[in-house]
């Protein structure tokens, strides 16, 4: 099930057992015996409410520096969760890691370095021109 299907056909899947797959992103929000993890499938992120026991198994969460763990969630989908202020969410019953996440290496592009040097040079010349004009 994709996030678009869940959002656009929410009435149809309300209170149904569904399966959803995507990358764990951002921080895990901790509550007493549960946790929230946001799972992004490439289009939208859906909130997943997890029992605390699953919390520790998620090692990587997507951010600028990391590709998050790819999770497969089975659980009850809520169109407007009565427990959680009426949001769309999934109450997970089972969580599996399909593919572990990893750090993302952001290499410096040679083109950008060259462009930076060139742009700085032009900026310096413009400032010099303005200072000279003022004098």
């Amino acid at each position, binding site marked *: 099930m994709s996030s678009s299907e869940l*959002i*656009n056909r*929410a*009435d149809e899947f309300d209170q149904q057992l569904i399966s959803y797959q995507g990358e764990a*992103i*951002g*921080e*895990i*929000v*901790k509550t007493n015996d549960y946790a*929230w993890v*946001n799972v*992004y499938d490439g289009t*939208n*992120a859906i*909130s997943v409410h997890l029992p605390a026991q699953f919390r520790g198994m998620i090692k990587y969460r*997507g*951010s*600028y520096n990391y590709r998050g763990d790819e999770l497969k969630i089975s659980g009850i989908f809520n*169109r*407007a*969760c*009565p427990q*959680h*202020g*009426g*949001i*769309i969410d999934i109450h997970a019953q089972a969580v599996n890691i399909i593919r572990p996440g990893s750090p*993302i290496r*952001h*290499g*410096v*592009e040679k083109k*950008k*370095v060259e*462009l*930076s040097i060139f*742009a*700085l040079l*032009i*900026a310096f*010349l*413009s*400032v010099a*021109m*303005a200072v*000279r*004009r*003022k004098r």
Partner: protein
Amino acid sequence: MILLKSRFSDLKIISFYLGKVAVTIAIAMLIPLGFAIFFLEHAVVYDFIIGFSAAVSLGYFLIARCHTNDDLNWAQGMVVVALSWLIAAFLGAIPLYLSGHFRCFLDAYFDAMSGFATTGLTLIQDLDHLSKAHNIWRHLIMFLGGQGIVVFVISFLFSGASGTLRLYVGEARDQRVFPNVINTARFIWSVSLVYFFLGSIALMLAGIMNGFTLKTSLFEAVCLFMAAFDTGGFTPHSQSIIYYHSFSYEIITIIIMILGAINFKLHYELWNGNRQELTRNIEIKTFTFSVISIFCLISISLANFEAYPNYMSLFRQGFYQLISAHTGTGYQTIYGPQFLNQWSEFSLIALIIAMSLGGGICSTTGGIKMLRLGVIYKALLQDINRILMPGSSVVVEKLHHVKDMILEDKLVRSSLIITFCFFFLFMAGALIGTFLGYPFLAALFESTSASANVGLSCGITSPTMPLLLKLTYILQMWAGRLEFIAVFILGGFIIAFMKGR
């Protein structure tokens, strides 16, 4: 109408002031550059060096080539303001585009304009993997735009030029807190910075309660505050406020959004202990009446539609979206398509009305604004009284906005003109959206959101939407933020340049 041909000296003085605006944008870019270094985002550093250099080059080139000691006249001031926002969005889009999170430069320009105009509609892709430096930049441009780009320039780069009043007024700020525009601009910044510290601390504590680390809580708090107080609506995550799963975040952002929607002149009165103003001011009265009545309509409609399983959910979702819409912020606790799928048409129309109304004059909100609405209402009352009273009676209508004022035809006329222009803009965008194949109500929702600089989306705004619609929304965000006058004068200036005698 006789159009006087614009002279070369007009272009020179306009370019000189635009140069100053470009330099200001360059200075602002040093902040995300610092963040990139602090967070060890080395690859990102170059995006901001390029953006900074482009802004410095353009700024100092214009300052050097067009240096003048002449003061701005009204027309030149308005043209400077109108062009400042286009140039600021262009320069602001450079590091965004270099992030690689946009399909094309136009998409990055769309986001930059949305940021500066404090709209909040976005075409960014894969936001959850964006660097912290780029995220800070997105929110910072929203903060600068909310205060007013020109107010920022006036605060830091001018020293008493009388042309500052023209720039200040051109940026849709009808009122001054102090007689001196520079003092007013500095007051606006002082208020914002005090709230910045208080609001950020409150949001940071909410983050820590959520189990976030101190560093993450602080980062999220700073971003959220800038976008909430300036009624912008960007967030560092694709899910908007849903991401946080926190009632505390919702309450704190509601308070910050309302503070952002209050007239800075009213902030000044409250800071000076004049609490009576809260109960007497026409803007506060109109805003309170509007929020209560629209919330009642939305609640009844959502309850009849069985959109939510209980009253608490209905209140949390309905009230949050209403405040977000009315203050022109655009934070969402529901996904865009849910507006169309789960909200009734009536509640959508009520939300569109809330979006169109906005907050206080001389606040960070967009839209028609409360003072104008109050003035139109008072004018209507006055006309009814005139008809009911004997012919020889003189009917005087008063309103209280910081001081008691007599309702004058001039004020009514200007309020009606701006209101009419907004309605025209809402409808024009809606018709273009409908022409491109979207349902009318959805097109009107998105068009109103763009024109009134709100940022709520029912799902139309996406990187795949038609080019014409992207251009339409950019134009709407720009014209709506400047409240038309500066845009009209720019149009007149261009026509005069080509056809004038």
